[in-house]
């Protein structure tokens, strides 16, 4: 097995893991298969101080495989305490989004007029609090102009433009990165606009631009997202996700 054989899903898992690099002893909260795998992979490799859950209320003593029982437990984080932890700040969340705009404003609530939506989605969930209270990244399994839109229909997650307008109340707002099935992006463009950081192996920058419904900042040569190491591949395939659930979220070689 060599790193050259990595699938797109495995590249995405590692790109998600990289979001937590340098975070130390905080909760890595993740939503979506590749994001959850990324948090646990980061903990098993370069970021051993991270705390991760069993997907429920238990902080597991070790990073556990996807869907596995918690095993030994090192802490308890029922929903109420998770909500307090959002305010406390020792947490970096990677959420999903049905729509995301140029400044990282996101929508998981509804498509169309919120008074009578064309499509009712989840609701706000924790997105408003997550985004104004601490580091937030996004994992978006399908990079398309339907998701990357000029303007979101409902602001669930707060983007950099709205956070800047909050004054001192917005001081904990911090959007880190957006990982998609095509690329890694951040908000290092002009005035905090979304910027292309790297394209996944085999993806041309033009394809990312075409899949993005607003002008994307691109600074010079675009890097290529790094491949998983052999050890990372082993951990993903044999330890964390032997059932290959990652391939249901991201298809293709």
């Amino acid at each position, binding site marked *: 097995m060599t790193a050259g054989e990595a699938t797109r899903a495995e590249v995405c898992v590692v790109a998600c893991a990289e979001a937590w690099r340098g975070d130390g002893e905080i909760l890595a909260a993740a939503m979506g298969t590749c994001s959850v795998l990324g948090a646990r992979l980061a903990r098993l490799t370069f970021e051993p101080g991270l705390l991760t859950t069993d997907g*429920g*209320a*238990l902080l597991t003593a070790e990073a556990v495989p996807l869907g596995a029982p918690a095993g030994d437990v090192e802490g*308890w984080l*029922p*929903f*109420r305490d998770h*909500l307090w932890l*959002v*305010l406390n700040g020792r947490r970096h969340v990677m959420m999903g989004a049905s729509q995301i705009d140029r400044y990282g404003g996101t929508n998981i*609530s*509804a498509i169309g007029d*919120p*008074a*009578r*939506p*064309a*499509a*009712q*989605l*989840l*609701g*706000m*969930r*924790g*997105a*408003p*609090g997550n*985004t*104004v*209270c601490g580091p937030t990244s996004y994992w978006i399994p399908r990079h398309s102009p339907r998701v990357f839109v000029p303007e979101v229909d*409902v*602001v*669930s*997650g*707060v983007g950099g433009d*709205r*956070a800047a*307008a*909050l*004054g*001192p*109340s*917005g001081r*904990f*707002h911090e959007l880190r990165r957006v990982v998609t099935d095509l690329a890694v992006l951040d908000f290092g463009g002009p005035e905090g606009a979304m910027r292309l950081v790297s394209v996944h192996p085999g993806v041309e920058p033009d394809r990312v631009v075409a899949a993005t419904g607003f002008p994307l900042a691109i600074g010079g040569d675009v890097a290529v997202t790094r491949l998983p190491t052999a050890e990372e591949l082993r951990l993903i395939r044999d330890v964390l996700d032997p059932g290959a659930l990652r391939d249901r979220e991201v298809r293709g070689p």
Partner: protein
Amino acid sequence: MDKVTSVEEVVSSLEDGMTVGVGGWGSRRKPMALVRALCRSGLRDLTVVSCGGPDVGLLCAAGAVRRVVAPFVTLDSIPLEPHFRAARQRGAVEFTEYDEGMFMFGLLAAAHRLPFLPTRAGLGSDVLRAGSGLATVRSPYGEGEDLVAVPALTLDVALVHLDRADTRGNGQYLGPDPYLDDLFVKAAARAYVSAERVVAPGALPGPPQTLLVSRMHVTGVVETPNGGHFTDCGPDRARDEAFQRHYASCAADERAWAGFAGRFLSGSEAAYQREVRRWHEEGA
């Protein structure tokens, strides 16, 4: 102090237009036996306050709901609740959307007789959109930052489902998460606990910190074995995923739903439980 009652008696004490809080979280430990009875009751114009799951969906399908106050409505393993979705998309129910943390603060405020509690959660988002009725307050300390003033989510009635209860109304959870059930109970003028088993006072097993709900806040207690079905009720019962899938697929189709409602929801709770057993035996 014996507060043992029946689901029918609980529901017959409710009135049209009430604000009803429902405990649990998503498709987890929902007081489904009480919700099913509510659906049969013909009550209308309810405001349902919930970390929403199939409770909200069923009540919407029954035409009992005017407004939903919630941070989300989901079946967890199935992200979108089909009846809630349909009701929203045809404009049949209003939706007051809260952030999860705001929602908890609203219950905390009501539980402690405070008019509001301040938080950062919600700032900058469309939770505070025009017409939401939500206001901010300026901190009298430090830099004077603005915070959301989450109004008390005061309830007329709370309905929660716990793993065990005693005949006086003390309630115990045995799973890993209390959800917000104790806050719902304290935020309500009247609270009803359903439980998988009801035992004699003093006979609740396990460590004292599992005694989540105190009888001082409880009006009535009902024994409803498997009363949380089909939601997750660990450790006694995991979510009935197969039946939840059946519910969701029927809910997406008008004729299929009529069949589902006729078979499972038209009779008593005992009839529901019997039909669910038969459905599983059929291997459907």
